[in-house]
Every structure is written in C-alpha cells, then in structure tokens.
C-alpha cells in the first residue's frame, strides 16, 4: 500500500518534471530512441527473415526424409572425398525401400534435370526443371493440381509419354487453349500434358517452384540423364514419428546397399530440420552482431540519461531536502528519480516505436517477400529494453539523491 502510493507519487512527480522540461527530456531521449529503433528493427527483421525462410523451405515438408548420395551440408573436405566414392542410389534400391518401409505414407524416387526449353507449336518456355518421378510424388512432394490429374502408378512404371507441368510453364506455353491433352516437346521427347500444378510461388523471391515439369522417372533415364543417382523421398506423415522412421530407413538402406557393420553409412538422410539448423547458425551470427551494435547505441543513450538525471538531481536538491524533512525515506527518493529516468526512457521508447513502425511500413512496401510487421512481442521487448536502460542509467543519480543529508539539501537553495 505504502509502496504503491510512493510509486504513484513518483510517477506524478516525474511526469511534472518531464512536462516542465519537455524539450530537454525529448533531446535527452535521442540516444535511447536510436537504440530502441535499432532493437526494434533488428528484431523485426530477424522475425521477417525467419518467417520468409520458413515459408521458403516449406516446400521441402517437415515430415519428408530425403535420401541422397551426399549430405546437404558438408563441413570438411575429407568428407567431400569420402562422399565422392559413394555408389549411386539406383532405381531398384528405391523399389526395395518402397516395398520394405513400414512407417512411410509414400516413397518416391526423384531425379532432377534442368533443360533449356520446352516447346509447344512456335512457343518456348525458357529454362524448366524436369523432375523424373512416379505416382507417389503427389504424396511426398506435397503438390496439388489445379487441373487435370497426376501420373498413375501404371503410367509411371510403363514410362508413358506423359507430363504434368507447373503453372508457370503452362502460362508460358498455352495462351488461349487448355494445356490438357496437348503434346509438348522437350529435348527429343514429345509428351502429352495430363495435369497442371497449383501455383506454389518461389523460394525467397528467387527460384520459382512453378517452373517445373514432372515426367515418369523411366523417361528421365532414357531421354535426359544416363544412369543418374536417385533421390528417395520418404513421406512419414506424422512429424512425431520422424525419428523412428529415419532409423528404420537407415537400417533398410544399409541392408539394401550392403554396408558392412561397423562402417559408416554410404548415403545421407536429409530433412528440413537440417536446413533450419543451418539457417539458425547464420541468423544467430547476424543477430548477435546486430544486438552488439544496438547495445552500444543503448549504452551511449543510457549515459545521456544518466547525465541529465544528475542535472535533474542537482537542480532539485532543495526539493529533495524538503521531501526528506517531511518524512521521505531513501527508498522514496530513489524511486522518484528511478521512475523519472524510466519515464524519460519509455518516452524515448515510444517515439522509437513510432519511427520503427514507419520504417517497417516502408520496408513492407518495397520488400514484400520479407513479410515484416511490428509484432506485439517486439513492441514489448522494445519497451522492456527502454525501461531497463532507464532504471540502470538512472540508478547512480537516484542513489546520490537518496543518500543526501537533509540538512545539506535544505541549505541548497
């Protein structure tokens, strides 16, 4: 009760003091404003970046395992050499996995190949990513169709001259006619379009996911790439079982590829998590250095606040004397000046949030991919940082005020 009354009183006094010296208070906060703007923008940018990255890699799927010859991230050159000697993952191995794997919702082979163009009549599409796979890709690749249908199992196994095209390919090749049933040309092959994929967007605004064309895997082997290594995509379905599925898959592959016991795997099982972990490493470095710079500007701002609080205490020495004479304890005086410092910093924090909101709005306009927005947690963080800076930098002046002897303070007119 007493403490509450003292806080209320302290708040009231500090508001009066700030209002009385409004220009001075606002000028004092500039350092804090810069600091808080940096904090806010850093945090918002990191949030935006994380979000954008997460969105970007969502096409990989959180519950899909990718068996490859090599790991997505290789951190030593000796490992590179070892990986170079690994044998290819062949189609029969994929089939063996598909037959034996119990914890999978779908198993699909995939081989990618970039070709210069796909043609229809006199139109050309430009570069297209060919994906050779089978009917299971509908499950493992997380794709949906906007029109037509996907490859069936028998069509895929019989290497029929069929294809499913991405939305961008369809837009480029077909203007007024329906793509379905048309014959398009890729390399020396002539393929009938049976389906068009739903639009999926791009990775960080760069790599389009709609510039794809899906063909039976046998067609890929025969028409485009001689004896490539396959990627096996294994859709687990339930993210909770992903570790168990990973273990099952690993054991299976070791058996199929006849890896002797005691020897390391000659294949790699990749998943989205690895990408995220890699990204986290990078973003941690950015965040750490960013917050270090932010810390510096807050430090400078804090010194400014400390300075002005010393001035404020000196100016009000007589008032401190009066308050002490009529019963203010050390705590009361300490609280009064701490609240004043915190209020000045919160004022700065509020100004800073206004500026940051403006910057974010502009950034949103020019960098739509980032999807930045001032989130409530960032606002809270900014205000908390302002408050803490105020309390820390106000402490020394407030402590000096609290410890004044009432006789000396009263003598100071």
């Amino acid at each position, binding site marked *: *009760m*007493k403490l509450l*009354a*003292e806080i209320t*009183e302290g708040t009231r006094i500090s508001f*009066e003091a700030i209002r*009385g010296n409004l220009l001075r208070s606002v000028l004092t906060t500039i350092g804090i404003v810069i600091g808080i703007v940096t904090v806010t923008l850093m945090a918002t940018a990191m949030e935006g970046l994380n979000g954008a990255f997460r969105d970007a890699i969502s096409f990989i799927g959180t519950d899909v395992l990718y068996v490859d010859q090599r790991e997505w991230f290789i951190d030593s050159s000796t490992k590179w050499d070892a990986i170079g000697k690994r044998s290819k993952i062949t189609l029969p191995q994929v089939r063996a996995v598909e037959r034996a794997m119990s914890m999978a919702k779908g198993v699909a082979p995939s081989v990618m190949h970039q070709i210069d163009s796909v043609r229809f009549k006199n139109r050309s599409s430009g570069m297209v990513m060919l994906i050779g796979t089978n009917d299971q890709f509908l499950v493992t690749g997380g794709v949906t169709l906007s029109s037509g249908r996907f490859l069936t199992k028998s069509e895929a196994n019989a290497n029929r001259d069929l294809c499913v095209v991405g939305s961008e390919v369809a837009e480029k090749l077909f203007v007024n006619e329906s793509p379905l049933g048309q014959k398009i040309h890729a390399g020396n092959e002539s393929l009938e379009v049976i389906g068009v994929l739903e639009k999926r967007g791009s990775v960080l605004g760069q790599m389009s996911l709609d510039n794809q064309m899906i063909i039976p895997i046998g067609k890929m082997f025969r028409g485009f790439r001689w004896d490539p290594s396959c990627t096996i995509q294994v859709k687990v379905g339930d993210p909770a079982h992903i570790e168990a599925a990973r273990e099952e898959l690993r054991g299976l592959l070791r058996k199929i590829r006849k890896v002797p016991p005691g020897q390391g795997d000659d294949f790699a099982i990749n998943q989205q998590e690895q990408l995220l972990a890699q990204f986290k490493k990078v973003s941690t470095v950015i965040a750490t250095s960013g917050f270090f710079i932010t810390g510096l500007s807050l430090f400078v701002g804090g010194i400014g606040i400390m300075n002005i609080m010393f001035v404020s205490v000196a100016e009000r020495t*007589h*008032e401190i*004397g*009066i*308050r*002490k*004479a*009529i*019963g*203010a*304890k*050390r*705590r*009361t005086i300490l609280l009064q000046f701490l609240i004043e410092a915190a209020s000045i910093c919160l004022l700065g924090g509020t100004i800073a949030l206004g500026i940051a909101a403006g910057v974010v709005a502009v950034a949103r306009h020019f960098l739509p991919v980032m999807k930045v927005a001032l989130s409530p947690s960032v606002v809270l963080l900014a205000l908390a940082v302002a408050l803490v800076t105020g309390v820390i930098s106000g402490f020394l002046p407030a402590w000096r005020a609290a*410890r004044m*002897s*009432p*006789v000396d303070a*009263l003598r100071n*007119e």
Partner: protein
Amino acid sequence: MSLIRLDAICRHYEMGSETVHALRGVSLTIERGEYVAIMGPSGSGKSTLMNLLGCLDSPSSGIYELNGHHVGEMDDDELAEIRNREIGFVFQTFNLLARSSALRNVELPLIYAGVGLEERREIAIAALTDVGLADRLTHKPNEMSGGQRQRVAVARALVNKPSILLADEPTGNLDTRTGAEILELFQNLADKGNTLIVVTHEENVARHAKRIIRVRDGLVASDEPVT
C-alpha cells in the same frame, strides 16, 4: 516521562582539517504542551540544535530521547519515519514545493505516512481549513502571499498530528502584520495543547513563548520562563 530529553549532546563537524564544535554538551528537557523559544546569535549553535531536535541530523555524542525513541542511534530511514510522525517543520523560507498546489503540499506528509488517497485528501483539506485557507486549495505557492504560504507550511506541519511543531524563524520573511498573524496562529495551537519550539533571534517573537532557552557558544546559557 518528558517529551524531549537531551543529555550532554555534542555535535562537531570536520571542516577541512579543523573540527568545529557546534554543540558542546547541551542538556535540557521539554515537556508535552510547552511553548518554547530557542534564542541565540548566529554561530551560537542554535541551528545545529534545531536540526538535532528536528531529527534532521544526529548528535556526535550524547543522548536524545524523543517521545520514548532513542533518536541518536537511528539510521537515515528510521529518522525519516520519526520526522514524518513526530515533527512538523515550519521554515523561514516556507520550503513549499513550488510546482505543487497548496493541497498537494499538505498531502505530502500523509503520502509518506501511507495514508490512502481519499482519507488524506479529507485530512489535508481540513488542515488547510483550520489555518483559514479553505479557498486556496488549488493555488500554487507563487500565487499566494507570504502569510498564506506560511499558513500552508503550518498546515503541512500539523497534518500528521506530530508531537512537536518546530519553527525556524517563522516570521523572518514576513512583514510585521503577517508575522503577528502567524504568531497568533501559534498561540492558538499552543492553547490547544500542541508542543511548540520556535527558533528565533527576535526578542519579541520569543516573548510569545512560555519559556526561553538561550544558546551561546554551543552551550545552554540560560533557560527561564517568560515573565
């Protein structure tokens, strides 16, 4: 038991390499309900004595008992609490908070005593009414005359019902007529049973009291009732 008991109070300060002996062993007692004037020329130690009596300062040695509390052994915060509860100050320069209204100034001791908002407003208004300032509640010090300011100070001093009202040259900054009004107010308070200690160097102010203590060279020179 006496309200105030000083026993061999000494107070010295270090001023550079020199030690200044402001009080050299003051002993006196003041009973509840007394109206006492403390007199002395400047440099006599009367300000130091007042600071000690008002618990603004602690003695270097000696015993000070105020209303049963051993003040000499208290720390800063305990002294603050004693000042808040037991002592009401009236200063020569009024010492009101310039930015606050009369009402806020009078409320302040109640805030530090932890009295709730509504109750303290009520008490403060009553205190200001008692000194004849019911129509000046929202005025700030610079909107009031010297006499009115000193009345606000008296209201503030009395608002926590202290054991002593301690006045330091209360009429020093007032003209004769307003000064007389304040002294009349003091007389009324004394008649109602309040304990008053007035520090002054003006003989005619001191003569309003019932007892005059004269201080000289850090010692009590004389202590006699006003005849």
